[in-house]
């Protein structure tokens, strides 16, 4: 255990003894996300660096404070990538923060989410114990799968010390096609393509334009591009990075929240995760569709949009998240049914008995 981690251990133990909330901060790039920020700041970005990377094993292990960009750069040198295409909400984004937030980018439906690529974690839990779950091999069913549970838990279960992830080879070829289409037609095509063996790797509809990325072997990409038609998009890489990092114009009303200016955002951004066959949303303002239809971003202005977002997402087999907003009083995450919430509380207590880690960041009750 490094001196730094030993220091955290002592602090965590003291915090648990005195029930003092701690707010775990990596790069701070995701402070806008979640219900509320509370507790004494515990800086974790100092615990950084790649611990082990063997490209032929398809596994990378790095400490929580490692910048996401650094991890991706190291992997790119061996022609590999983080296949969940994590968003970078700023240059300081860390690997640990990315795992804790559990957000995945455009490639998610085709290559898997954060949790699908997590192989193992080392964790400092509420008792200050250093715990290792999962491992550095592709298949591992020994013990409950705590490492995948940690992905997306928003730091409420413990401090992620380091994480092992499955790496995937970068596609040999990639091309992006665009189509002029209304949303309904875009969704119809995405659904049809989804059910055929095409090398899709991203999709995004916005303002009458559908963008579809194809990745894989040269021949497969070429054959699919011939089949789908459309126009080839130049500067495709920059386009997908903008969608991924929310620097695309669609997200412009919210840019202030990334730290630049301190203006009050004019609206709320909803993230609706639903079945791919859900119809086009009929509420709120501007909409962006990603993930073959499984992800809808909706800019909402009105109070009642919140009720609609929740009800609509639930009716479409999914859930709604108030992703960016100044006023979060309607609740950020879809409320859980009572039995499930009780289970969450008991699970939280199993790893964080005094409830010190990021209390209220996910739900007020956690």
């Amino acid at each position, binding site marked *: 255990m490094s001196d730094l981690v030993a220091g955290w251990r002592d602090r965590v133990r003291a915090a648990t003894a005195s029930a003092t909330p701690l707010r775990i901060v990596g790069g701070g790039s995701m402070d806008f996300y979640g219900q509320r920020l509370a507790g004494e700041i515990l800086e974790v970005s100092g615990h950084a660096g790649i611990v082990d990377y063997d490209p*032929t094993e398809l596994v990378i292990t790095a400490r929580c404070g490692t910048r996401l960009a650094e991890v991706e750069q190291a992997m790119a040198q061996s022609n590999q990538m983080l296949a969940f295409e994590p968003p970078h909400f700023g240059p300081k984004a860390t690997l640990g923060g990315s795992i804790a937030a559990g957000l995945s980018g455009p490639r*998610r*439906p085709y290559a898997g*989410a954060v*949790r699908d690529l997590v192989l193992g974690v080392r964790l400092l*839990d509420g*008792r200050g*114990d*250093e*715990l*290792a*779950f999962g*491992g550095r*091999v*592709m*298949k*591992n*069913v*020994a*013990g*409950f*799968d*705590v490492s*995948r*549970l940690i992905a*997306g838990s928003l730091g409420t*279960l413990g401090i992620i010390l380091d994480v092992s992830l499955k790496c995937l*080879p970068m596609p*040999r070829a990639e091309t992006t096609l665009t189509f002029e289409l209304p949303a309904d037609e875009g969704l119809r095509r995405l*659904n049809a393509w*989804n*059910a055929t*063996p095409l*090398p899709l790797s991203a999709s995004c509809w916005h303002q009458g334009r559908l963008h579809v990325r194809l990745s*894989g*072997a*040269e*021949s*497969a990409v070429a054959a699919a591009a011939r089949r789908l038609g459309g126009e080839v998009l130049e500067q495709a890489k920059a386009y997908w990075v903008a969608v991924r990092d929310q620097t695309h114009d669609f997200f412009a009303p919210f840019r202030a929240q990334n730290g630049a200016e301190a203006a009050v955002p004019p609206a709320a951004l909803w993230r609706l*995760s*639903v079945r*791919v*066959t859900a119809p086009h949303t009929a509420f709120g303002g501007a909409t962006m569709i990603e993930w073959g239809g499984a*992800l809808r971003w909706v800019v909402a202005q009105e109070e009642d949009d919140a009720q609609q977002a929740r009800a609509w997402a639930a009716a*479409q*087999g*999914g*859930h709604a*998240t108030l992703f960016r907003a100044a006023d979060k009083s309607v609740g950020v*995450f879809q409320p859980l049914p009572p*039995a*499930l919430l009780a*289970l*969450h509380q*008991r*699970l939280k*207590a*199993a*790893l964080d008995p005094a409830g010190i880690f990021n209390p209220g960041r996910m*739900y007020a009750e956690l």
Partner: protein
Amino acid sequence: MLDPALLSALADLLPPSAIIATAEGTRPYECDGLPLFREQPLAVLLPEDEAQVVGILRLCHAARLPVVARGAGTGLSGGATPYRKGIVLSLAKFKRILSIDPLSCTAVVQPGVRNLAISEAAAVHRLYYAPDPSSQIACTIGGNVAENSGGVHCLKYGLTVHNVRRVRAVLIDGDVVEFGGEGLDAAGYDLLALINGSEGLLAVITEVTVKLTPNPQQATCVLASFSDAEKAGDAVAAIIGAGIIPAGLEMMDQLTIAAVEPFVHAGYPLDAAAILLCESDGTPDEVTDEVALMRSLLETSGATTIQVSQSEVQRLKFWSGRKAAFPAAGRISPDYYCIDGTIPRRSLAPVLKRIEALSREFGLRCMNVFHAGDGNLHPLILFDANVPDEIARTEAFGARILELCIEVGGTITGEHGVGLEKIDQMCTQFAAAELERFHAIKRAFDAEGLLNPGKAVPLLHRCAEMGRMHVHGGELPYPDLPRF
């Protein structure tokens, strides 16, 4: 015997045919696919809908009666072995495929549906369910989720956990919960990930939504033979290192080839020390390109012969030997014991050598047939249960292999689960604090420990008694626990 009051409450809930409480009636349930462990339960219950499962669990919860959920009983780690003072809850009647949606590429199925039945039903839409355990004609999707099962195709298409969208389950107190959803994620903690591989310890699964995958346009299998196993191991690393994720990458050693070839005539070279089966799937052009690349990598790695399947018939023939490996083991030996560890690929060759040495040390033959692409070993130890001490030697041999897997940075189980079988090795793989957290998670779901007790996670004093406690940094964990 089942308490008469409980029996009558169960009789109000279930038809008489759904309650088996006689010794001869429960005998078929005394073990799963690992007959080294056998136990008679007090009763076997066969509910047919979720309301009955809820009713049964409420009664068992109130009576503090242990419950072991059971699918097809093909598990290989004793996960479904009954508990002597408990009941077996069989999901065998939950056999309906509730819906298949070809647009969202999903199927909603009951837990007792067989793995292969899903692909068969989806075939009209040119879709299939990708995880394909060798037991797929028999094993159930509920069992697959509980074990997070894998198969040949999992290298490219993921394990069960990657192919399940939603699980509906009943908690021990009768509460019905859903994990995951119809979208690609869900609010709150990722309990869907946690339920996969939970070995029946957290909840009883009553419905599963699986992801379906479009059939590839083409699949081609390359069969390569090697004069020594080390070279075959290096070839595996070379293929993965070159950025290829084959649709399947399996290895078989000489003893396995010798056992299966006379049986299935797959065309395997009998003089090879090891063969690799390497599959490519995708569009016809893509497959042509990938096969050419695989071929050149295999040649550079020293393959002595390379055959490429020229037709679907030939492809299936190449695979027939792999699929027949278990029955072939049964033909050349009265009994066999399948081990399931995962290791980093770089350790394949040295670990195979060590297993060979252990085989001589224990005087037992061992066939190696396994998922080489993801480093998941399946040594099959051949033994004869009628020879005194062979069972004991086999178990000791198996335990040594698992410890070897941990030593090289791997794990004691890649896909078969811990069950009863590997409970002692859990003490080696995990430190006391980690095992304690597993128990805490278990208690969060099942405070009284009624679901599948005694499986998957060892009690700490058991580890201490075994003298196997994993020691971190020289500190003896739980020094206050008695040691014998």
